[in-house]
């Protein structure tokens, strides 16, 4: 898949994974797993990118005597998900246009 497109999609996946409650790295990967296979090394830069663009915030909390980073979505992050839903309509119509001939041939 086109790297830019995939990047954008995975960003939204991660935002969705922390939308309802704060989550941490391992949990995010587990939650996404049924839908998208994402490795830890893929998730890491995404989290950093989302933090840099203020779509999520990070806090460190103690868990079983060690530190764990929890990620919380921001208003901007929620907006991004809504934006994605709207954009998707556009992508579907682009898809319809691109595959138009294929479908015409089939008919």
């Amino acid at each position: 898949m086109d790297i830019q497109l995939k990047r954008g999609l995975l960003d939204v996946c991660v935002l969705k994974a922390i939308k309802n409650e704060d989550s941490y790295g391992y949990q995010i990967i587990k939650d996404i797993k049924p839908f998208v296979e994402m490795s830890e090394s893929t998730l890491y830069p995404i989290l950093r990118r989302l933090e840099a663009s203020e779509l999520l915030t990070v806090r460190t909390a103690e868990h079983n005597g060690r530190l764990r980073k929890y990620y919380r979505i921001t208003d901007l992050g929620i907006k991004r998900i809504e934006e994605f839903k709207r954009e998707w309509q556009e992508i579907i119509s682009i898809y319809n246009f691109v595959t138009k001939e294929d479908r015409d041939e089939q008919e």
Partner: protein
Amino acid sequence: MNKNEFIIRLRQGLSSLRGADVDKSVDYYTEIIEDRIEAGQSEEEAIASLGSIDEIISQTLDETGDQAPIVEKIKNIRKMKRWEKVVLIAGSPLWLVLLISLVAVAASLIASLWAICISFCAIELSLLAGSLAGVICTFIMLFTGRMYQGLLLLGAALLCLGLGILLFKLTIQCVKLMAMGTVKTFVACKHALVGKEDTNEK
């Protein structure tokens, strides 16, 4: 590979990044490993499931490089300049004196060549002025009845004019050559300096 070995290799692999970036990355993977162990995996399993460490390193380098390419570049330039400054300051007694004398020699060479050029112009100007004055005086003398002196003066004036015409092209050529030479010298100096700046940036 156990956790400590993993962390050491990760730190080594990311050593080109800023310290804070390395720490963040190490914290992240440590947390994941510990979470995996907590979920029931053994340490070895947890690390194995992260995939190849070389891939993790190259991916982290790529992504972090993507995020802060300009910052990294500026840092490199600063490093270069600091290093250069030390060399420049340490070597200044030598190169500064050499540079000043070189500039002085070049400047005096240009100045003396221009002096020759200016004297040519002065000769040319005086020859033309002399011939003009000679012709005017000749007419005055002819009208005031001093025929022989007038003719002598006319001869001198014509001689001046002839020499002036002969020297005219030479003088123009001389000025042109000097002007072009001076401009070219300055342009060459500028290019030399700009060229140096370019290598600094690299």
